[in-house]
């Protein structure tokens, strides 16, 4: 595990040695193919009977929500790992999950509320699922603020880990508590399951292609975020070496 995040860096940063195989560059090329392909599929997909054209928003909305949950799970796993081992690699995994989670939650909320404007006539309703995602995002934003207000690297990692574990355990509790909250003025149009859109064959293919594209993008972002953190370590390392020189000069 100690070198896992080093390996996931794929030779980015300032390296003097030989260049390694760089997965992020490969992903850039594959995305060049898969992004247009996804767009074509989304445009060609049949419109939903009730939601008509607007149903296509679903193809961005759902993958980003899945990836948001995945990121927060990564953050949680990183937190557990850090708690057991105190290794920097787990810390890098935590911050990667945290930042990408907030990013994809934001995409999910923005696309969701644009769709809700069409389907429900309002940008915002307090239905349980939406409330849960929003609270989740606020929780993780708070974690991000916590991280940025600590100086010492060791303590930074420790507090991030504690907050990640508590926040992740809290998510199901938040979901259950939103049921007690009166749903407000706006009825949920599609029954209890707001996103329950009947998908037929072609739509499912489109959705799968969209999820694959988003996942490629997710892996690309993860590599870049890990690279950023490794660069930070590199700066600290060079700086330490310089200070040592000064001490012996």
């Amino acid at each position, binding site marked *: 595990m100690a070198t896992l995040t080093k390996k996931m860096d794929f030779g980015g*940063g*300032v*390296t*003097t*040695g030989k260049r390694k195989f760089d997965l992020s560059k490969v992903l850039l090329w594959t995305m060049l193919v898969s992004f247009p392909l996804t767009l074509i599929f989304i*445009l*060609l997909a049949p*419109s939903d009977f009730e*939601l*008509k*054209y*607007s*149903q*296509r*928003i679903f193809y*961005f*909305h759902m993958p*980003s929500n899945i990836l948001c949950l995945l990121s927060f799970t990564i953050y949680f796993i990183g937190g557990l790992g850090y708690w057991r081992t*105190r*290794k*920097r*690699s787990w*810390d890098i995994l935590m911050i990667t999950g945290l930042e990408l989670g907030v*990013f994809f939650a*934001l*995409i999910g909320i*923005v*696309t969701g509320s*644009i*769709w809700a*404007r*069409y*389907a429900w006539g309002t940008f915002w309703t307090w239905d349980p699922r939406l409330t849960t995602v929003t609270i989740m995002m606020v929780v993780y934003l708070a974690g991000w603020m916590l991280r940025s207000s600590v100086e*010492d*690297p*060791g303590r930074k*990692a420790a507090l991030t880990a504690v907050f990640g574990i508590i926040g992740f355990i809290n998510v199901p509790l938040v979901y259950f508590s939103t049921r007690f909250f009166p749903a407000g003025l706006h009825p949920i149009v599609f029954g209890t399951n707001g996103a329950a859109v009947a998908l037929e064959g072609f739509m499912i293919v489109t959705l799968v292609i969209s999820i694959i594209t988003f996942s490629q*993008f997710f892996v690309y*972002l993860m590599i*870049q*975020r890990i*690279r*950023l953190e*490794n*660069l*930070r*370590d*590199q*700066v*600290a*390392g*060079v*700086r*330490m*070496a*310089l200070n*040592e*020189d000064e001490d*012996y*000069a």
Partner: protein
Amino acid sequence: MNLNSLLFALGQTTSTPPPPTTDQVDSGFVYVIAAFIAVWLLIAVYLFWLNRRQESLRQEVEQLRQEEAERQSTQAPAPTAPFTELDPKLEVSGTPQTPQGNLRG
């Protein structure tokens, strides 16, 4: 495929848009375009931010390396210093040290 509405959406970005017909609003096409633009904007902003942070760190590494090189060229190889035979540059470029992980007193 609703070509007219696609042309309408393209036209919106370049010229003053004609008022959307009820058909376009009804089908939700405008909303799809809006969501699409929003997603791209968010992605662009995040990528930009990520890249900027990486760049500034890369510059910092380069700058520190230069400082180090300058110091070594100005200083004669001092036999009194106990650690000069250990080239710190080698160690740094090979395996970046991670003081973060193990700094706990």
